[in-house]
């Protein structure tokens, strides 16, 4: 009889076991982000930039077009091919080639000024033809090419996926687990005991945090081993940031699951909350691509702030003071969500 039982501990362990016994959940939390990292990392690995295809039409004489093709082929970025006039204009219009060269004389360039590739091709073609015609460069220049670790797509991607995973796991797992408990009247049975309601909600969050470290090891470890994605800042700060992010999204998960009594309802609400952040918050591409007018809104989203903080720590080696504003945004969301969820939570 003297045996001591801690309800918070028992609830947390139960929650963790429940999660571990859900094979689908394990897939989404651990395997899916790993697969996504590998797939996207491979798809966007660096390779020599593609050559720009351009067309050359027959000039006044066969020699002028042969000479033009030869001259253009000396450029490292152009891929010239011979076209008939009609055929060439059509290829340009449909985007198969970026530039159509009429070697003349006089030389004429057909291109679409709104296409960056067309403009590059025009400058390169002009350069190549001028040199072939004997122009001498008056200024000597030297090109230095860089592919720095930390500036590649996969470096951008891994922190984004980490943030997305913290959001997805927190919101899905908690919203679903409390919704199922409510729809099956497990909650009703629990509130018929002396259990403290805050213990139940807290256990949902603690149970989830237990999986944070393995999750981090898999994603960050995979990025590092497979693609050399760096962690330039303090590892402790990275873990702390993830912990805060995970807790904040757990709070949002509780909010999503606070009143609905069907899985369909919970899933609709979860998607409604997460979809904008998948698109806007800079998971797969930088959120700065969106217009300036919406930037304040985007920056206030919890996933944007978390992704910014994660990228700053991993890629730029940021320290705590540098990411404090972002962490404050994340913490504010989590706290507000938890407080509201606790208030409006429906137990039966």
């Amino acid at each position, binding site marked *: *009889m003297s*045996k001591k*039982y*801690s*309800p918070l*501990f*028992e*609830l947390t*362990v*139960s929650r963790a*076991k*429940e999660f571990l*016994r*859900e094979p689908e959940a394990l897939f989404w939390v651990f395997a899916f982000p790993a697969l996504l990292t590998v797939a996207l990392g491979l798809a966007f690995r660096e390779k020599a930039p593609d050559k720009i295809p351009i067309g050359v039409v027959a000039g006044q004489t066969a020699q002028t077009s042969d000479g033009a093709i030869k001259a253009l082929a000396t450029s490292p970025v152009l891929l010239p091919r011979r076209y008939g006039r009609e055929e060439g204009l059509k290829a340009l219009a449909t985007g198969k080639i970026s530039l159509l060269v009429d070697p003349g004389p006089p030389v004429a360039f057909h291109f679409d000024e709104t296409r960056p590739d067309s403009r590059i091709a025009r400058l390169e073609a002009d350069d190549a033809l001028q040199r072939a015609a004997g122009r001498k460069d008056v200024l000597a220049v030297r090109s230095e090419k860089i592919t720095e670790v930390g500036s590649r797509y996969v470096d951008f991607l891994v922190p984004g996926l980490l943030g997305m995973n913290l959001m997805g796991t927190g919101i899905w797992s908690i919203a679903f687990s409390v919704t199922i*408990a409510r729809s*099956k*009247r*497990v909650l*009703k*049975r629990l*509130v*018929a*005991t*002396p*259990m403290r309601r805050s213990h139940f909600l807290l256990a949902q969050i603690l149970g989830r945090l237990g999986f944070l470290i393995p999750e981090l090891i898999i994603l960050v470890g995979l990025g590092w081993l497979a693609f050399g994605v760096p962690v330039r800042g303090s590892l402790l700060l990275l873990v702390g940031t993830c912990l805060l992010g995970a807790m904040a999204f757990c709070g949002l998960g509780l909010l999503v699951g606070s009143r609905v009594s069907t899985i369909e309802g919970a899933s609709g609400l979860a998607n409604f909350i997460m979809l904008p952040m998948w698109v806007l918050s800079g998971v797969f591409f930088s959120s700065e691509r969106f217009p300036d007018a919406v930037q304040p809104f985007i920056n206030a989203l919890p996933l944007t702030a978390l992704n910014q903080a994660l990228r700053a720590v991993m890629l730029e080696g940021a320290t705590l003071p540098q990411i404090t504003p972002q962490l404050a945004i994340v913490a504010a969301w989590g706290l507000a969500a938890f407080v509201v969820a606790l208030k409006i939570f429906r137990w*039966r």
Partner: protein
Amino acid sequence: MISPTTPSETAVRCQGLVKRYADVTAVDGLDLEVKSGECFGLLGPNGAGKTTTIEILEGLTQPDAGVVEVLGTTWEKDEDQLRERLGISLQETQLNEKLTVGETIRLFRSFYKEGRDPEVVLAKLALEEKRNARVGKLSGGQKQRLAVACALVGDPDLLFLDEPTTGLDPQSRLQLWEQVTDFRAGGGTVLLTTHYMDEAERLCDRVAIVDRGKVIALGTPAALINSLHAANVIEFASEPDIPEDALRALPGVAEPHRRGPNWALPVNSLTESVPALLALIERSGARLSHLSTHQATLEDLFVSLTGRALREES
């Protein structure tokens, strides 16, 4: 065992209980009093308002009107203390299917300051061999036994059981009945709902028959049955049918009524009424297609009180 803070003869009292839902009044001015140490049964058909009543008493549902007093106090005043002293098994209790039996009982034990050893409770309900089985894999009877185990593990003074044996196999029923008897032997009070008359007769000291949100009869099972003024019931059917007037005229027949295709005749003495009935059928030139007799039960009482069977059999 916690001793009651205020020694009270009454474990549960409610007066003028009303609960309305959008389209129906589930409880319609219901009064009850359950004495300490007794086993009290709420008996009635589905939809009579039993579950709503018991959930109001359990502090899980707010009544629209009425006074509720449990263990000498009220839910508003002492919810936390009451929860420590109550054991509750909801109708079709659902427990987390991903947890094992052992984990579930341990979890429930952890909610109570004082309680019983989970292992002992599992053993009592013959679940110790299922300790490592997931709740989702249990049979209906095992799940219900686990639900009762969860109600008992906090060592309650008052046990609420909402249809504890509905849909159970006979063996599980007997095991649950034993637990109720056992719990009472330790001084506990039980309030249960059931629509099984035999369960109420077997377990309950007193029974309230509930219909349409009201108590329509109250007393010990024996007294209620006696109020039928008939110790036995004859059921018969014949071809062609015998008119009601002719049946009423038979010696010792109280209130003939229909039960399915049969006539049911509450009678005091079978030896007096059965020969008279057979003679009547013979005289009418009818052919007997069914004849049976049984001791009067609460079911017969319910039928005679409401004109409806307790369970609408199809």
